[in-house]
């Protein structure tokens, strides 16, 4: 007989209010210098890390959740800033970009059987993209419905879009578009929407200190007629350096959502406006109405990264306060911080690859609940 008689203790729902997270596992990354990017593959079974030690490592997750490094190799002659996976439809393909002014494309080669037994795989370079004259700051694959297309942006202010016309031959890439943004670029994000209602669109962020050009975020849209990308919008209200930018996955909405990491976290809504022009086919990009949805300065200073989860229900940001913050909107579209990850500077006691002890989990829960209970009146 189940005991339903115990009245919920005072304050129990205060505890439930907080999203309690814990460190389930710590993996020793073994890079010899700072890690600059970590990227999950599409299915969340593999991850790639890149570092100032000029190498990229690929990790595979086994069935019991443990991570094993299956490849580690030198990729560039400078710090590697970003690493990203292509869609699995194109196979196992990675792209990396570096301070050494290049971006590179890598493909996994199915190895010898003894390699497989040892849990190793090989990645070979398919191409090096050397068009940039300065550090390549970001590299992203375009949405898969556009084919196998790679985009880079550089400190020289140019966005370059490459295409591999034959997906079975990754050594052939052609530079399809070269877009000069006039400002040094730090980040790009493709609009993931594959709806026919929206032509291909990407956003570029700039961390240029130049004040002549006001807006540090530019939106470009592809035009079917001219077969070129044209600027659709500049976010003039974003005047400080932009370090990261991210379109949210589109879930049947008619508008776009864009998150920006600048001196604060900002979320914009971009609403395509219907064209009233007399021309049957518009010659310019879609007019976008820009609305700010939320702005958070909790990080106290620069925000360096923003990223959406898969369903765009949560946004994460990382800032100068050494924290990662999670943001969520309720059904009234009010945004709130629902969780914080903070480095506590304590040394890691358990060895890599092992789950943190249960007592630590309980410990941190208790710690959190203690915080939540502070201010509660005693007894009833």
């Amino acid at each position, binding site marked *: 007989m*189940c*005991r*339903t*008689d*115990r*009245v919920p*203790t005072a304050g*129990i*729902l*205060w505890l*439930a*209010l*907080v*999203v309690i*997270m814990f*460190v*389930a596992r*710590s993996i*020793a*990354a*073994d890079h010899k*210098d700072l*890690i*600059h990017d970590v990227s999950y593959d599409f*299915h*969340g*079974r593999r*991850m790639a890390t890149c570092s*100032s*030690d000029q190498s990229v490592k690929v990790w595979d997750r086994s069935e019991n959740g443990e991570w094993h490094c299956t490849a580690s190799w030198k990729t560039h002659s400078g710090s590697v800033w970003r690493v990203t996976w292509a869609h*699995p439809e*194109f196979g196992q393909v990675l792209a990396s970009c570096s301070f050494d002014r290049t971006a590179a494309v890598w493909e996994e080669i199915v190895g010898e059987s003894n390699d497989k037994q040892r849990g190793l795989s090989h990645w070979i370079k398919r191409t090096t993209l050397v068009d940039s004259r300065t550090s390549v*700051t970001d590299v992203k694959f375009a949405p898969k419905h556009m084919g196998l297309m790679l985009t880079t942006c550089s400190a020289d202010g140019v966005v370059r879009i490459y295409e591999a016309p034959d997906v079975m031959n990754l050594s052939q890439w052609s530079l399809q578009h070269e877009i000069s943004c006039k400002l040094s670029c*730090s980040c790009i994000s493709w609009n993931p929407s594959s709806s026919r209602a929206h032509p291909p669109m990407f956003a570029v962020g700039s*961390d240029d200190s130049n004040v002549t050009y006001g807006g540090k975020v530019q939106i470009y849209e592809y035009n079917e007629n001219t077969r070129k990308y044209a600027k659709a919008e500049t976010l003039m209200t974003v005047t400080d350096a932009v370090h990261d930018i991210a379109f949210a996955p589109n879930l*049947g909405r008619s508008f776009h959502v864009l998150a920006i990491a600048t001196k604060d976290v900002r979320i914009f809504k971009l609403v395509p406006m219907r064209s009233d022009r007399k021309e049957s086919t518009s010659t310019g990009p879609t007019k976008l109405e820009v609305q700010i949805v939320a702005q958070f300065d909790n990080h106290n200073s620069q925000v360096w*990264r923003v*990223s*959406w989860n*898969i*369903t765009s229900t949560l946004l*994460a940001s990382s800032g100068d306060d*050494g924290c*990662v913050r999670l943001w969520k909107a309720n*059904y009234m579209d009010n945004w*709130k911080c629902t*969780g*914080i*990850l*903070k*480095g506590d500077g*304590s040394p*890691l006691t358990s060895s890599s690859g092992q789950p943190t002890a249960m007592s630590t*989990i*309980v410990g*941190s*829960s208790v710690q959190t609940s203690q915080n*939540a209970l502070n201010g509660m*009146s005693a007894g*009833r």
Partner: protein
Amino acid sequence: MEELDVEPAITNIPAASDGKHLGFAWGPGDILAYETLYMAPGMCAKGSGCSFIHEVRKDEDIYSPILRKLFNESHHIFVGLQTIREDLPSKNKKTQFVSISKNYRSVIRACMEELQQVAASVLVLQVSILLAIELIWNLCEVLFIDAAPAGPLLLHLLDWVRLHKGDVDEKAREVLQSESPAEHHDYWDVVVSYVLQGRFEEARQMLVKQATLQPAARNMYKLMDTLLSKMPFYNPGGTQTLTEFDVKWRHWHEEVDRCLQDNSFASNQHLEIICKILVGDEDTLLEHKELLSTWYHFLVTRLLFCHPTVKPTELHYYAQSCMTMFLDLRSVPEPLDSILLAAFEFDIHQVIKDCSIALNNWWFVAHLTDLLDHCKLLQSHNLHFGSNLREFLLLEYASGLFTHHSLWQLAVDYFDNCPEFGHVYLELQIERVPLDTERKALKVLRICEQRQMSEQVRSICKIMAMRALRNNRLGSALSWSIRAKDAAFATLISERFLQDYCARGTFSDLDLIDNLGPAMLLSDRLTFLVKYREFHKLYEENRFSEAAKLLLSLITAKIAPRSFWMTLLTDALPLLEQKEVSHSAHCALHCGFGHDLCFILQ
């Protein structure tokens, strides 16, 4: 009412020191955090090596093995609820809805029982949360779904309080099992608790034991026994109207009051207290806060003894005043209090809103809101996002399920029942289900095919085809590309097959190629491959004239890849020497031969 606002919890990431930044990456069901240093352009920083990457998860993952049963069984109830026909008469529907509500609650209780058996400190929290959930759900069932009118309303509320205040029975057991129950130090607490809960039969039985110990006070105990036995309780199934009951109750109330005025129980402090309780004296009730333990118990008790014919619309007034009277002036209402108060005020919207904020697991609000929506209770409140609220919550809940390695299949049904966004959510998330095995891939495919999600079907098949191709499993790659209806890929794989043949002189995956049927028409190259293999088969079986005819058609149809022309011509040579080949075929082959030879030589 103000929205509950709480500081978010901080999760500490070890080994990430001061002055460093924290990088992150979203994963399915987790977020990776690592120490890094972001830099403005032109800056350079050297970091230490050997940093750690930390996998951060929500605490729900600890509970989920046990909650799995809750998720599974409630999924079953949910699906059943969606199929209740719209055209049923509302009376029948109401009975069904109440029954469904009770099913949900019994699933919650079963889950609590299981959790209670696992002695882990971390689960105490989860049990308490489930307790709160069941308490709230039960009240919502009484007020909203069953929607009892004045009369039965109080009886249902009494049941509700009794169900959630069972420690009385425990104490009573202890007292009764002692040597002399009437002298047990908890004896009077038990009696008073029974009275407070309106359990007069049990109270009377207990009092008998005291009465036998005090023969001198026999008359007093007899009087109390009479009062207790005569208290009217409304009988919903009976013929008495509410007004008649009210009259009867007032008479009884006056009688109790007369006993007080007459000092009938003055010499027995305990009986005097009970008499004051029966007459509904607020101060006396409040003196027993410890036994009541909650303001809502106080509320129901007060109604029982002051206003048993309370109407649903009057509840909020009593609830508010009881809460104020019961709680310390200093204390802040807790989330649970706000939720219950909102329920007594029949503010369904507020209940859902506060529950969404208070309980970060979406299970409860999603299922309750869905049920209330079916009862048409959300719409009647004219919320502009009435049904969107239901969808929002169901989508949140189901999205959480999707990251689970086996529960994701339950999520599909929830998405199916969200008419506006369910489909697009499903499309987005089902693509991410890892295709670890062919069996799993087929499972995912079946779900997509059933819902005409053709793009997802194509994509999954393409991923599998690519994977097979990379591992040189041409047969598997070919099957998958056919299923993906990917002509280009099928062509590519067919070419590989043909290259293989050229290199080794034999075909692989003969079973597959021989049994493709109409699927071979997907691409010219594939058709050629199948037909070419057929040609070889005919040749091996010495059916030379058929073989010749086939070869001829292959040449004339011009579906052979250029690289293969020499091979075809070479194949034709031995046929020309065969006697069985008909004369016309011979000629045709010669012509074909000649024609193509010219072609090749150009």
